[in-house]
């Protein structure tokens, strides 16, 4: 297993954001971490990045405990989120150059040019981040996420703010990366149709707990408690949002 999350709990004073969550991710797999707002998805991602200290439980990535091998693990991992940004006055190139240096990328200009081309944003290279649209900002975040050719990608709503064409391009790039390089991806999204297409397995969370895990169709069956021919994650999402997740858990 590339990622093993074992009985992870995170409590903020009296609030339990993540409650005894366990899951694992196989190498080359795309795992969807889904759930309504406040389910604990972002807390889990931030804990996997070492930005939040767990209250209990253990995380092992690439076979190493995160608590003792943070730098080695993060060197081979990357992430993106629409909720973080870059220094606004620096240009796209300057921002990417800083992060490329941070990861020790050998030929930084060539790598940055390749990624800007991959996401069709070469024209933005010299533009300050403050003048980008939110969709363009997401693309820059994705370029940053690919700088170190990560073995594991944590993608928090990677297609948020993107127009359909750009979103499709991003999904193609991700699938291509998984197929060509065997990159493992942990994916969160509020777009259930996208999750059905992208993810081989789903971990569905509600109020910090895992309420179902398995393939999209298995999660559909587990939560809706009825036979379906095709996955219906949107219906699952609405059902959980209405408070029907407790029964499934």
């Amino acid at each position, binding site marked *: 297993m590339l990622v093993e999350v074992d009985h992870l709990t*995170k409590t*903020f004073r009296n609030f339990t*954001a993540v409650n005894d969550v366990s899951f694992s991710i196989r190498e080359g797999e795309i795992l969807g971490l889904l759930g309504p707002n406040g389910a604990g998805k*972002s*807390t889990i991602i*931030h804990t996997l*990045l*070492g*930005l*939040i*200290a767990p209250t209990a439980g253990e995380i092992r990535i690439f076979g190493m405990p995160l608590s003792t091998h*943070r*730098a*080695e693990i*993060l*060197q081979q991992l*990357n*992430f993106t*989120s629409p*909720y*973080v*940004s*870059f*220094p*606004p*006055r*620096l*240009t796209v190139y*300057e921002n990417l*150059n*800083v*992060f490329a*240096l*941070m*990861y*020790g990328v050998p030929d930084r200009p060539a790598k940055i040019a390749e990624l800007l081309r991959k996401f069709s944003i070469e024209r933005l290279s010299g533009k*300050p981040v403050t003048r980008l649209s939110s969709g363009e900002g997401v693309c820059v975040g994705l370029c*940053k996420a690919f700088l170190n050719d990560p073995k594991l990608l944590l993608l928090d709503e990677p297609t948020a703010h993107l127009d359909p064409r750009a979103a499709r391009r991003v999904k193609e790039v991700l699938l291509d990366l998984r197929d060509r390089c065997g990159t493992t991806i942990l994916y969160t999204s509020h777009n259930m149709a996208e999750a059905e297409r992208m993810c081989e397995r789903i971990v569905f969370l509600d109020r910090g707990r895992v309420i179902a895990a398995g393939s999209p169709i298995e999660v559909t069956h587990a939560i809706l408690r009825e036979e379906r021919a095709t996955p219906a994650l949107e219906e699952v999402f609405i059902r959980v949002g209405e408070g029907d997740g407790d029964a499934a858990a």
Partner: protein
Amino acid sequence: MQPHRIRAVMLRHIYEAWRNWDRITDTIYWPVMNIIVWGFFTLYFSRVNQLSPGVVSFLFGGAILWGMFTAFQRDMAIGFLGELWSRNLVNLFGTPLSVTEYMTGLIAVNFLKAMIGMAAAALVAWVCYAYNIFPGLPAMVPFLLNLIIFALAVGVVITGLIFRYTTRVQGLTWSFTAFLMPLSCVFYPVNSLPKYLQPIALSLPTAHAFEGMRAAIAGGGFAVAHFVWGLALNAAYILLAVALFRRMFDSARSLGLLVKME
């Protein structure tokens, strides 16, 4: 510690200094304006009260070195606040960058900026007011070093407090040195303070640095006692600052503040 990650932090702030007028203003404009005001002030008093050249040197030297001290500690905190303001903190600490590497990069780049600001102020003092700090500088270097170490300790403490208490305490970035200034005896000797304040002043490395600097300017040679006291106090303050910073950072990480800071 990986040098390339420290260089990345420095590069990020060099780009910022190049692109952001506020940072250029902090580095050069304020130190120069400060010296221009002090220059006119000393010119006026020289004419009216026949200030001795020694006093002029105290005033100019004090203004230049205090400016450097203030700029160093302020820019440390502003460097970190910049990450908060731009919501870049998660990006930075989601890389293998350690907090020690981050602080080392921040210290290195702000040391360079403080030196540039001090050089600009000294140049203006020399060109406009014929006050040349440079011949006397070798005698001041040990005290300058003590000022830099203390500025570093103050910068580390304020950055740690911002990690833990977020932008609620960002005002300390600009206000804390003003609190230290009267007790640091930048422009007057420690014995001119009320008796009850003198022990407090002497517990600050800055007061020892300025006492030593005045002794050097007055031709009294190298004030070993002030240098040693300053250094010993600095050792204690740095240890305390690093311990406090660690505690604040761990607490911020435990409370999830690194991802929620605004």
